[in-house]
């Protein structure tokens, strides 16, 4: 199990089934959240970016994915300050962090399924 799943399991009070459900929910939902964020950056829509980054931040916090969470915080702050000039760059970094995270979570899910 990756450190992410371990952390999530801790928040789930040691309930493996719940952790599994939450991982599935995350894998299922996060592409839509980042699509919303990327779209908001393109459309220069800080309010939508702020909401989506905030939601993602909360979920990443539950998995102890600190680097990705910090990037979501950065994007949320940029949106709050209404300055999206560097948002594209941060978004790129966030996307690659999330790819790493998803690979780790996928492996954990396969291990749990065995």
């Amino acid at each position: 199990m990756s450190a992410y799943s371990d952390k999530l399991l801790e928040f789930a009070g040691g309930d493996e089934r719940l952790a599994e459900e939450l991982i599935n929910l995350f894998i299922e939902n996060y592409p839509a959240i980042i699509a919303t964020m990327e779209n908001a950056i393109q459309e220069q829509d800080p309010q939508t970016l702020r909401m989506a980054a905030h939601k993602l931040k909360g979920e990443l916090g539950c998995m102890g994915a600190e680097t990705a969470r910090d990037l979501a915080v950065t994007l949320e702050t940029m949106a709050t300050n209404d300055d999206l000039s560097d948002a594209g760059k941060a978004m790129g970094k966030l996307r690659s962090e999330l790819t790493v995270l998803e690979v780790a979570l996928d492996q954990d899910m396969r291990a749990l399924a065995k």
Partner: protein
Amino acid sequence: MKALVVDDDEFQLKLISSILEKNSYEVELASSGKAALAFLDKGEHVDVIISDVMMPHMDGFSLLRALKFDRRLTRIPVIFCTSLGDKSSIVKGIQAGITDYLIKPIKESSLLPKLQRATEAAYRVVLVVDDEEILTALLKKALMREHYRVLTAGSGKEALELLTDNEVAVVLSDICMPGMDGFELLAEIKEINTKIPVLLMSGRGQYTENDAVSAGADGFIPKPFHNTQIVALVQAHWQ
């Protein structure tokens, strides 16, 4: 014990509701402030509301304002879920009347004690004392409709017993009762705890507000009265 959890994020709803269900809470989920209000509008009873702060359309603050504005819902304890470092939401929340707050990610070890404390405060009761059973039943019904918890006693002696075992916020007592009358009960209660407001009621013409207040009562209402008068008087003395 029933908790209403409000969050636009399915992930957080799942996590919080699972912790609650595992600990024998009944859980109702709402994905927005509007959905939470729609549920409460149906007259559904909840003991505590756990709400996210940042949500689209209606955020936690707007939901809190709506709850505090509604006489029937104002006493439901609200716990805000905020992000680490979001001190301004906590300060604003406390000013607007939240009972407590939690920092995300939510941990079972912090959620449960806070819930317990929040609901204990909400579990304070109005104690209605009257030897006329029909009257106590009617008052109980009127107060419960306003989301108060109500205990009833048929005598002063019974009332004193209930006072020792319960967190009583307001006492509403008749004056003319067999055995211990309302004035004697008032004196006994003030002896135990001067802070509990005691409201006396009696048949019109028998006693006046002056009699009640000089005996140390916090309020007086002559019978017959309208339920709304009683509710307003209890509300005014609810601390």
